[in-house]
């Protein structure tokens, strides 16, 4: 079958449960466009997620999907990619799933640098559980669970990603699905662990985020392969600069040692008296 696929071929017939206005619709749009542009086939792509509104995304694509447990999408995706290096693995999820319960795995995923792409739909809130602060929520944001705010400094995913070794780091915005699609294409093409932090407004619990479209700065980041330069750039980042921050040269993770072809029963020599 040689006819090129369009983004429509990557969408499933399942209707998203997301609130109209949700930024995540933009991500489905962008992802499907990106996958078509990459000339991939749905059966060779796996979308792996955890728990949260944005983690519903796998079923909205026609690719293989894995909707796992909260916080563990990155490791499920890594296991899948390591067992099946022939697949394109895209891990998706939200800021709570990825930076809170998933924080440890995020850090190590950047270190490990397995060739896969991680798209985080950051709305600075736990939406699915009805409005609690997440690690990226502003310290003074009032909520029922943390009245008057958490008082905690925000988690800075781009900083953590850069410091931990992610090989491609970008920020995008769901209000620009075409721009996001381009970034996803670059991210998938770039070897190693590619991290795309996507500002994705939650119109239900953070309706003020509708203002984001007036605050983001398109093409404000210039990709560099120089970590020091990217670091300096991040030091004057206010969270609304879009573009590719870092595109590095780390080789993607490969398990050490050659994969052999020895027949299994030859292992018995290790036990023979």
């Amino acid at each position, binding site marked *: 079958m040689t006819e090129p696929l369009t983004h429509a071929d990557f969408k499933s017939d399942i209707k998203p449960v997301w609130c109209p*206005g949700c930024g995540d619709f933009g991500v489905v749009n962008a992802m499907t466009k990106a996958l078509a542009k990459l000339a991939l086939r749905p059966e060779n792509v796996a979308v792996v997620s955890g728990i949260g509104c944005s983690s519903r995304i796998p079923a909205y694509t026609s690719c293989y999907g894995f909707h796992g447990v909260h916080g563990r999408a990155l490791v499920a995706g890594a296991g899948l990619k390591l067992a099946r290096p022939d697949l394109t693995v895209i891990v998706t999820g939200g800021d709570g799933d990825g930076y809170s319960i998933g924080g440890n795995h995020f850090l190590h995923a950047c270190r490990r640098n397995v060739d896969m792409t991680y798209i985080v739909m950051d709305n600075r809130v736990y939406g699915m559980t009805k409005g609690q602060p997440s690690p990226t929520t502003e310290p003074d944001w009032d909520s029922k669970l943390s009245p008057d705010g958490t008082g905690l400094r925000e988690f800075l995913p781009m900083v953590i990603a850069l410091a931990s070794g992610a090989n491609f780091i970008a920020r995008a915005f769901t209000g620009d699905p075409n721009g996001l699609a381009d970034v996803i294409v670059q991210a998938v093409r770039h070897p190693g662990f590619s991290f795309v932090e996507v500002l994705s407004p939650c119109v239900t619990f953070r309706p003020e985020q509708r203002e984001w479209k007036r605050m983001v700065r398109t093409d404000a980041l210039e990709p560099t392969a120089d970590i020091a330069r990217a670091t300096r750039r991040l030091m004057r980042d206010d969270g609304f600069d879009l573009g590719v921050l870092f595109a590095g040269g780390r080789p993607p993770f490969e398990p050490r040692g050659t994969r052999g072809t020895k027949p299994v029963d030859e292992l018995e020599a290790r036990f023979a008296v």
Partner: protein
Amino acid sequence: MKRKLPRTVGEFMAYAWAMEVEAAERYAELAEQMSTHHNAEVADLFAWLARIEGKHRDQIMQQMGWTQPPDTAAFSWDTPEGPETTDYGDLHYLMTPYHALKLAEHNEQRAAEFFEHFAASKVPAGVRDAAAEMAEEEREHVRLIQEWLAKFPEPEAGWDEDLDPPQGAD
């Protein structure tokens, strides 16, 4: 992403076509979203708008005598999406036909401005003429939408009030 200026009528109409395609697809998607959220009135409205944009798209194909869709890979919009495409972020599940039509009006206005911009730029005369024509058509669409709008007055404050709190599913 710098927009490349069309040099031929064909290239220009490819822009116009792409705009309609994106607008139609978006309206269809929004119709589905509204339907899932049980806002039948607005779902129907978006579906109708999708059909209209689809007609515009087909008209362009016919007009230009194209048997294949044009290649739109080489250009891009100055704005994040096509001028006639509704921003996902502008929806609300309780929105009324008034709001939907205001969005449509905004889309048509932007489309008209888009073509007016071409009509006023350094493009060959043929393209300028085609652009002026398209701009006039879009202005006509704006008037049509405004006629519809007259039937739907702006709703009172509190239109977005839902007495039920949000639900969590997972």
